[in-house]
């Protein structure tokens, strides 16, 4: 890796920072597997951390009255319109993975969050537009997926991976009196940074960051549409 540092004139860029730049520019670097850390095949890794899940719309609904006109139907009369949005949230998450090979791992995760649904009221002939606090949900996600470590040179402590998977979504309305279920699918990428281990038989300890695009079907949604939203997470991981 020394030649890369030299290429930047020794201005203090770390190898890891340089690697991020290269990856996000989409330029592949020749594999240098011998210098990158790897998961220990057939061993378990436990990840515990926090996630940030972006907000997304859950539907616009218009309260309509039957209009007054001849025949069986007439243009409806709008009483008001409600635009509902699930707000962003931060929540704890735990993931447990098993490395099938040094690069390929399967993992399962669980998270619990309490996002709120905000409601924007508009088009009410008798009241001004307004934002309602909405209600607070309880949301559980159980998912499973794979991570695959990219065969690119990242230095002795950093490794990048891509991920994908799907899971079960359970959302409970406030007061826990009504629940909705749905599915979450995701694709993303991330990085693991080994503070210890990553080579040989030393048990691993490190940091992990994930960036995902989540696709949510069903669950609480007033239009029953697929919703897309970003999700970031950071973990401390321990290899067993």
């Amino acid at each position, binding site marked *: 890796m020394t030649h890369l540092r030299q290429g930047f004139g020794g201005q203090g860029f770390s190898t890891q920072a340089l690697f991020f730049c290269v990856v996000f520019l989409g330029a592949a670097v020749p594999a240098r597997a011998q210098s990158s850390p790897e998961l220990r095949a057939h061993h378990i890794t436990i990840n515990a951390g926090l996630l940030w899940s972006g907000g997304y719309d859950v*539907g616009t*609904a*218009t*309260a*309509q*009255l*039957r*209009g*007054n*006109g*001849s*025949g*069986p*139907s*007439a243009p*409806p*009369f709008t*009483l*008001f319109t*409600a635009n*509902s949005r699930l707000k962003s949230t931060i929540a704890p998450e735990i993931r447990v993975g098993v490395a099938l090979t040094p690069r390929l791992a399967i993992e399962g995760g669980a998270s619990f969050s309490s996002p709120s*649904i905000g*409601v924007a*009221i508009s088009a*009410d*002939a*008798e*009241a001004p537009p*307004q934002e*309602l*606090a*909405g*209600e607070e949900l309880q949301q559980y996600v159980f998912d499973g997926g794979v991570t695959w470590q990219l065969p690119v040179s990242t230095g002795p402590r950093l490794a990048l991976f891509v991920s994908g998977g799907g899971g079960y979504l359970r959302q409970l*309305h*406030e*007061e826990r*009196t*009504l629940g909705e279920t749905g599915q979450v699918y995701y694709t993303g990428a991330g990085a693991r940074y080994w503070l210890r281990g990553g080579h040989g038989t030393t048990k691993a300890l490190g940091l992990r960051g994930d960036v995902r695009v989540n696709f949510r079907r069903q669950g*609480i*949604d*007033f239009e029953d549409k697929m919703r897309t939203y970003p999700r970031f997470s950071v973990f401390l991981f321990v290899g067993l």
Partner: protein
Amino acid sequence: MTRLLAATAALLLTVGSSSSLAYLKLGALVNGHVIDATWQQQPIGYFIANRDSNGVTANDLRGAVERATNTWASVGFASVRFSYQGMTTAPPEGTDGRNTIGFLDRADLDRVLGATSFMIDATTGAIYEADVFFNTRFAFSVAPGGQADRVDLESVALHELGHLLGLGHSAIGETEGTAGTGRRVLGSGSVMFPLALSAGATADRVLQADDIAGISDLYPGAGSLMETGGIVGRVTKNGQGVNGAHVVAFNPETGVLIGNFTLTPAGEFVIARLPPGPYLLRAEPVDDVSPDSFFPTPVDVDFRVTYASRMVVAPRGGSSNSIEIQVLPK
């Protein structure tokens, strides 16, 4: 044109609430308490008065009433049955032990399309006779697609049969003033809204969610209690209960609109028989129609339209925790 909620005088008939506070229903004052006025024996037999009116025959009326009775009887979560007993020469008024439906010339009620009168057992609340008249001062129609400049008879029959079953008026509707002292319906969310749609309209042949919830509350059918939920709460102004506020529950997932009133001095309301799910609540004063159409005593209409701060869930087979909607004076 008003569809009058009529009551036979001196029968202690009142518009009020049952002990559950649910829906505006006809009630009988028994020992100081208002209890639901309901039919305790079914099917409810009825006769058709053998009189034509302005091009509509008694047989046409029979057909329109039969369609309306079938509509009420088809509500899944309610248990209502009617039985046609035949034609009669008796007018649809007076006390004869028969439920009579027919045309009647009521020149004194020049804004009333039809009305329902009752005989109620003042000790039990049981309805044992009811008559429905349609005012011959108006031109009715039984044309399948409606008829311009004529009022759809089936629609009015469906509304009046709602009264005959014990339902009061619903306030889910918006109106505007017209020249003179009248009001015109802009939109209606219930067959039991007190003002009729314009002549030619046939939309009121179809029961709305509000009507279905009301009749299911009055005559609950099998599974009704377990498959529906309720929302309870209070409407307050300056810390005091608001009596007579109209609260509408709107499910943004299904578009269902079901309403009820605060029916106590503490401003309490119950909206029952809701399809389970989350609801937005909107409290409004009863100012689209004269409050007289709903309440025998004055109610508070001096407050602004206000939404509950959060959505409320009607749980299956249960009721929400109480929510307070704080309104401000106009």
